[in-house]
């Protein structure tokens, strides 16, 4: 996925004030602010509920007006550098506050409400009213901008980390494997050009499967084919030292699985269980279906003593566990055990078919 490089990544991350959710949040925040102000002013001689009511009324006008202004300016703010966007957002909120305050003062000086309502609803000290509101608006607005900026940065970090991890998981063909395969192909180019050609085709298919980002799930048949391609390449290099037994005839080949479910397991089995053993070894891939549950098992001999388990193994298993959990939330399992002198990995997941894909096959 290409990174959006041209844009300044440090942009202002305001919520979408055109959306109902954000407007509801504004109403809630405004009401709570009014409550805080009313509590703080309780001893001013004005009745509490009356103070709360008129403060809330005033702030609702300010809140709704600001939300409307920010909604209208949304696209423009997003394309501006951070400093300018912040200033514009804050400025527009202050303008709203100024307009609403002037409105209130105008209402007080007009005879529209009558003297009783004027005394109850309007500020007792009109001379400070305007300046106080602008001051409070500037402070609270700045705090809010700072808050939105920090949460936006945080969310962006989380996203970047997640994306980086997915990419790392996908680009996980071992360099060791790549260069050894290249070396094998270089050797075959002269001695057995037909096999060299096949090996290049296999390698291309394998990389295509590894680089595939769009299709997160494929049929079991396709996944097993990728694993077999991997085996063919390793076979050229390891010769008779590598034996693989496939016992997968009972599997429902149209079941959908996350891509690269099997191949990394086979890769691990060969890398840890066969390559380090001078005499080589046999990897067994077997699959069964029990009702709606599919079980895949990969077993390989343990390397000779001294070559303890590598951490790379655990990374691959965690990766598979994570992706299975995304595909079948709570309905899959990954087990890895040493049993006697064998290492056994067992995957269990529900049988799911993609109706559109299977009808088109």
């Amino acid at each position, binding site marked *: 996925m290409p990174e959006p490089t041209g844009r300044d990544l440090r942009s202002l991350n305001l919520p979408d004030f055109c959306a109902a959710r954000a407007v509801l949040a504004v109403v809630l925040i405004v009401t709570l602010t009014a409550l805080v102000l009313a509590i703080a002013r309780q001893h001013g001689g004005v009745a509490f509920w009356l103070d709360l009511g008129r403060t809330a009324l005033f702030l609702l006008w300010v809140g709704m007006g600001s939300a409307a202004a920010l909604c209208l300016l949304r696209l423009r703010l997003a394309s501006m550098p951070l400093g300018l966007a912040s200033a514009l957002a804050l400025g527009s909120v202050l303008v709203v506050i100024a307009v609403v305050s002037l409105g209130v003062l105008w209402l007080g000086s007009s005879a529209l409400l009558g003297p009783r309502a004027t005394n109850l609803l309007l500020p007792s000290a009109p001379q400070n009213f305007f300046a106080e509101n602008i001051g409070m608006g500037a402070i609270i607005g700045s705090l809010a901008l700072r808050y939105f900026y920090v949460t936006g940065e945080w969310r962006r970090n989380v996203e970047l980390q997640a994306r980086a991890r997915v990419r790392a998981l996908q680009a996980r063909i071992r*360099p060791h494997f790549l260069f050894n395969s*290249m070396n094998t*192909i270089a*050797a*075959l180019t002269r001695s057995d050009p037909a096999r060299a050609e096949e090996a290049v085709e296999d390698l291309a298919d394998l990389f295509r499967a590894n680089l595939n980002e769009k299709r997160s799930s494929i049929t079991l048949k396709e996944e097993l084919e990728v694993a077999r391609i991997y085996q063919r390449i390793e076979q050229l*290099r390891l010769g008779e030292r590598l034996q693989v037994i496939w016992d997968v005839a009972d599997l429902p080949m149209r079941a959908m699985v996350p891509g690269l479910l099997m191949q990394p397991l086979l890769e691990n089995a060969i890398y840890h269980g066969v390559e380090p*053993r*001078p005499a080589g070894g046999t990897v067994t891939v077997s699959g069964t279906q029990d009702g709606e549950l599919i079980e895949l098992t990969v077993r390989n001999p343990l390397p000779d003593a001294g070559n303890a388990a590598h951490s790379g193994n655990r990374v691959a298993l965690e990766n598979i566990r994570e992706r299975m959990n995304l595909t079948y939330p709570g309905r899959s399992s990954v087990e890895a055990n040493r049993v006697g002198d064998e290492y056994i990995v067992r995957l269990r997941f529900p049988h799911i078919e993609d109706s559109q894909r299977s009808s088109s096959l």
Partner: protein
Amino acid sequence: MNQRVLIVDDEPPARERLRRLVGELGGIEVSAEASGGEQAVRLAGELRPDVVLLDVRMPGMNGLEAARHMALLPEPPAVVFTTAYDAYAVEAFDAQAVGYLLKPVRAEKLKAALQHASRLAGRQLQRLAARDPQQAARTHVAARLGDQVRLIPVADVYYFAADQKYTTVRHPGGSDLIEDSLRTLENEFPGQFVRVHRNALVSVDRLAAIERDAEGQYHVVLRDINERLAVSRRLAGELKERFRL
């Protein structure tokens, strides 16, 4: 006289390609091929090649270890390592100025490497091995035997005992002198061997019992061979407890 080369790699296609490239250079003769470290050390002793092209990553004895054993030969060959991808090894080779080739090997680089190949000093190789995070411990220890090197699998060793100058290794085939000090061996194989005395390191698997004779001296009794080794008083209690003897 032609330069004589020994090719060592566990993968048949890799050997095949090197053989062809070496053949095409001219003036160089492939004296033999080996598919593993042990075979390579044996062939290096028998055929005395000028240069060994040695794969780093091999099952069993790897290239670094094979090179260390070859360095004990009276006329050790020059060594050029080959590797497909091994970031640690490449870094270490650069640091120690050791010749290496990256696979797939280019003909002109092979030519240059063979021309400039040099013998490696034992100390240089030890430093290389120390930098290898995967496999610091050797699979074999090596004893000089005439103009050959005898490899003794570490797993077969009963014990190591120190004289004034040499270390004796006792194994099913008898006993041999090696150049490693007890301290080096103790550090290289922790868990596999245990110190029972200032001058003896015993295989943990061979410990059978600890006995005390009439004079109050402690001895370890070994499995499979009828030999006893003195145990220092200080270590006797610790050993009894640790191995439940």
